[in-house]
């Protein structure tokens, strides 16, 4: 197998992996162009970690093929390992050792020339804002710092393809934002990145392409915008403070699109799916509601979130993400039709 890859850093086709009777992966296909970010999105147990373990040579697939930078992960595992970096939910950081020692050990184990390890470690410590704590044991670091150190360790040998398995799971909001910034910067330097996440906003924020994985299968894929368009595009939403005038408001906006408005009676909230003509529909809605003399609050246009995508393609919510982060929201289809 040569190094004649045209532009794809990762090619996955018909990948299967079972553990006894559990079919963790049932035929996954996707490609990741060089220098781009693929977000693999799915709830706990969807098969994301299994996929990453196969792609990083840790697990042999039952069938199917994975090629990383032109090398087959089964036949050329050693060549693949020289080109990839992996940072996971569990950090490989040895907490008793200092940040610098951790990086230098990882560099030596990556077979970097002894002379260049030191400089590279120092550079990463500065870049990941750990330089001040470089010579303190890693157990004195905050969670965010430990995660940054772990990421730095996976980058020590300048891998061309980086795998991040749920890089922000367990971090506080501040730590998450810091991680996002670092990931964006990495991608700016041309690293190909595959990241798994349960957080829909994270995939939205970082990925060029998203594959939605559920029960071992890719159930949807595309750019974040394409996926959102699949569930009906933009959504116009507003609240009618006066319960008695809800019907009038519904009549006023009914002609805005082919979709019938939905009403959540309890919250007096009205939603209209307006496809990709969001801005025109917004202006038109304001005009009509004004003409009808209906008072409204919180009139706004929403692009559907990836929560909506997940619900639409899987039939169930992305439980792990929306629930434990407290912004479970109702999708239009759960509202009471007008």
């Amino acid at each position: 197998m040569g190094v004649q890859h045209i532009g794809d850093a990762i090619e996955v086709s018909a990948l299967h992996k079972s553990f006894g009777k559990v079919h963790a992966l049932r035929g996954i296909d996707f490609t990741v162009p060089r220098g781009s970010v693929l977000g693999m999105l799915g709830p706990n147990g969807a098969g994301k970690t299994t996929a990453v373990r196969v792609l990083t040579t840790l697990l042999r697939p039952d069938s199917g093929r994975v090629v990383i930078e032109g090398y087959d992960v089964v036949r050329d595992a050693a060549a693949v390992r020289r080109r990839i970096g992996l940072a996971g939910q569990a950090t490989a950081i040895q907490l008793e050792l200092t940040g610098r020692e951790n990086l230098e050990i990882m560099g030596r184990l990556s077979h970097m020339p002894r002379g260049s390890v030191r400089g590279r470690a120092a550079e990463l410590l500065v870049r990941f804002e750990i330089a001040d704590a470089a010579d303190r044991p890693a157990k004195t670091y905050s969670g965010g710092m430990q995660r940054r150190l772990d990421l730095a360790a996976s980058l020590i040998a300048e891998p061309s393809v980086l795998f991040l398995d749920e890089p922000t799971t367990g971090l506080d909001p501040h730590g998450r934002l810091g991680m996002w910034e670092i990931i964006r910067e990495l991608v700016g330097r041309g690293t190909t990145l595959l990241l798994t996440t349960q957080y829909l906003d994270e995939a939205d924020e970082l990925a060029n392409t998203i594959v939605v994985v559920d029960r071992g299968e890719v159930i949807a894929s595309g750019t974040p915008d394409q996926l959102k368009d699949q569930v009906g595009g933009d959504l116009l939403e507003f609240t009618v403070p006066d319960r008695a005038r809800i019907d009038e408001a519904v009549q006023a906006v009914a002609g805005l699109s082919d979709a019938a408005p939905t009403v959540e009676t309890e919250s007096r909230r009205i939603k209209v799916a307006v496809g990709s003509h969001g801005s025109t529909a917004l202006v038109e809605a304001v005009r009509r509601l004004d003409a009808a003399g209906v008072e409204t609050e919180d009139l706004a246009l929403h692009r559907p979130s990836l929560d909506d995508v997940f619900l639409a393609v899987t039939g169930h919510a992305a439980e792990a993400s929306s629930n434990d982060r407290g912004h479970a929201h109702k999708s239009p289809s759960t509202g009471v039709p007008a």
Partner: protein
Amino acid sequence: MTVLAEPEITRSRPDASQMARWAISDALVMTRRNLLVWLRVPAYIVFTVVQPVIFVLLFRYVFGGAIAAPGSGGYVDYLMPGIIGQTAAFATFATAIALAQEATKGVIDRFRAMPMARSAVLAGRLIADSIRMLIVILVIIGVGYAVGFRFQNGVGGAVGMVLLAEAFGVTVCSVSAFVGLAIKDEESVQAFGLIWIFPLTFVSSAFVPIATMPGWLQVFANNQPVTLVINAMRAMALGGPQFPLNPALWESLVWLAGVLIVFVPLAVRSYRRVG
């Protein structure tokens, strides 16, 4: 598109001698890492060094008075090879626990996704643990000298005893490595994974002459490997007609070789299956 410059070293497929050099240097890097961790954690040092020292003092001054020992040097001479053997066996608790932690925390996964030699995690662990074991053995011999122990059989005998203790410790390490990687749960490893070390070391000739045990227990004690190893260590340390070197030495070497042949492949297999 960015063209990523690859380091020269990764471009061609490495040959066998390069692989061997990496295997050695990776094992040494892992050894250094493991020893650094040991030195950084006071609790580990206390557990590995202070505990055997307490055993020496306890048996020398508390229990020793009640134990009649064969040989000219009295109980302290009889005791020290036993304590050293037991220390080598107990030192492997740390092996099992460290490997179990690395397996569950995903550290081993991370190493396996790197270009480092597959053997380095286990080899580095065994080398570091035998170095640690040697340091502890030398400390205990020092403490033994302070409380009256003397080698009776020359420098050669003393060196032979330490080497056999090391070989014994490395052998028990291979079992512990297997247990740690197979069970993978730190608490379980501590609770029952290595519980067999206690009867093997205490129901042996390590602390008391076997003749003082009830008959049914003597059958076990006389024929189990720890007794054979400690008898051979004692023969090398003390010499003299009460402590014949053979057949204890060759029997214990056969035992150690047998255990290694079984457990090294088992440990390697469970290492491959981690995760």
